[in-house]
């Protein structure tokens, strides 16, 4: 790491300063209440707009499911991208905060993916006549959900946190490389196996009256995700500090845990 701290690489220095766990704890502690308040306001506005939006001429009232479904689906993918970026950061720079970020994001992403699947199938019942059809998008989101489950399961199967983090990072990069291929193959499969028996409702463009609530809800979900992720990262950092303190206490030597938690992170 000493190679990064050359005087000319001030940009990297700044990022490194932000990535310090105690700096993160301080900053995120300041931001989190504001983020939570912003989330509440955006959701209040978005949900009000969603319920006051006119029903779709084709889909009727069920179109309101879209205001939950589409942001959840978008976040399910954004969250996996975040995990992949964090994992790459962890594998390359071994930065503990990147691992904390990847670990904290996985259950949140899995939850959003599940939410997208459930709302999708609830929407599918009135639209397609079945809770589940092997539509290309549904199928690829389902596989994304399995990838999330695999990530969480792999992390849980390894006791030692440092090893678990790197194994999960490798797996999430394998998944990130494969997701576009899976998506392409599922699209190909669907067009091959499914002739135009299921006619997708919904016009070519979304009417502005429906688009505005959707955008507000998408922003609300995104801010909610950032808040949840920040909170989960804080919890994870605190958990690691606790573990390190317990370990030092059990060992019984006089060494102090560093207050910024750096001794904790390199387990």
């Amino acid at each position: 790491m000493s190679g990064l701290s050359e005087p000319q690489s001030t940009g990297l220095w700044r990022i490194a300063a932000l990535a310090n766990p105690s700096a993160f704890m301080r900053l995120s502690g300041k931001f989190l209440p504001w983020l939570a308040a912003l989330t509440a306001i955006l959701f209040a506005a978005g949900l009000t707009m969603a319920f006051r939006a006119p029903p779709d001429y084709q889909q009727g009232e069920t179109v309101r499911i879209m205001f939950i479904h589409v942001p959840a689906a978008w976040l399910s993918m954004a969250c996996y991208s975040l995990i992949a970026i964090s994992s790459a950061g962890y594998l390359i720079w071994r930065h503990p905060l990147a691992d904390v970020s990847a670990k904290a994001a996985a259950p949140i992403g899995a939850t959003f993916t599940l939410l997208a699947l459930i709302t999708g199938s609830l929407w599918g019942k009135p639209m397609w006549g079945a809770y589940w059809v092997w539509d290309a998008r549904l199928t690829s989101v389902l596989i994304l959900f399995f990838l999330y489950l695999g990530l969480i399961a792999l992390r849980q199967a390894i006791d030692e946190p440092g090893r678990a983090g790197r194994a999960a990072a490798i797996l999430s990069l394998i998944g990130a490389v494969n997701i576009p291929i899976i998506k392409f193959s599922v699209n190909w499969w669907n067009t091959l196996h499914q002739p135009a028996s299921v006619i997708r409702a919904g016009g070519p463009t979304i009417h502005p009256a429906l688009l505005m609530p959707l955008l507000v809800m998408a922003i609300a979900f995104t801010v909610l995700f950032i808040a949840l992720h920040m909170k989960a990262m804080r919890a994870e950092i605190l958990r690691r500090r606790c573990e390190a303190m317990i370990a030092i206490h059990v060992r019984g030597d006089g060494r102090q845990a560093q207050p910024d938690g750096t001794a904790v992170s390199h387990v």
Partner: protein
Amino acid sequence: MNAFLALIGRDLRLAIRQGSAVGTALGFYLVAVSIIPLGLGPDLNLLSRIAPGILWISFLLSAVLSVDALFQEDRDDGSLDALFIGPLPAELIAASKSLAHWVTTCLPLIVITPLAGLLLNIEPASLPKLLAALLAGTAGISFVAGAGAALTLGLRKGALLLPLLILPLFTPFLIFGVGAMAASPGAFEQSILLLFALSVFSVAAMPFAAALALRLGLE
């Protein structure tokens, strides 16, 4: 290169002289194929229609379950540590293991596939297509599974975890493998080319992931 070939030769000799792992994979494949008609009923028309799908799925399951032991024995008796000290980079060690898995498990499974297809009343005309698709795609399967085996090396729940990690990644192989059987013109050529592309990509990329995971596992 010599070390690479020697390592493959060693794995092949081990597989031939021990024999049990290959036999188990073959047995699993046949049991998996023959248990499905018991659940679906003996309708030969139905079976012959879904035979390619059943064969591919059984094939993937056999490959995943047999790959679990890919690095296990070498790790347990210490030869994996010895290999890592040797001149061969970790990526090539992982690649040779995956290649040995393809030769010792996937090839015998492909050889036995006509027999399994017979059980399912597969159309004789589609059998060569199926074998070609298996030959094109299974190299990639061995390499993806090799990365998964390296990741779960030495874990308590590894045997159960591995299919959860790896089977979603097999989606493209399964789709194009069964797609090669489609009646539409050009579907076969297109699927075979895509399977080749998948295999080439996996052979090129997966050893790096496997090597990272192996280094982690040996720490």
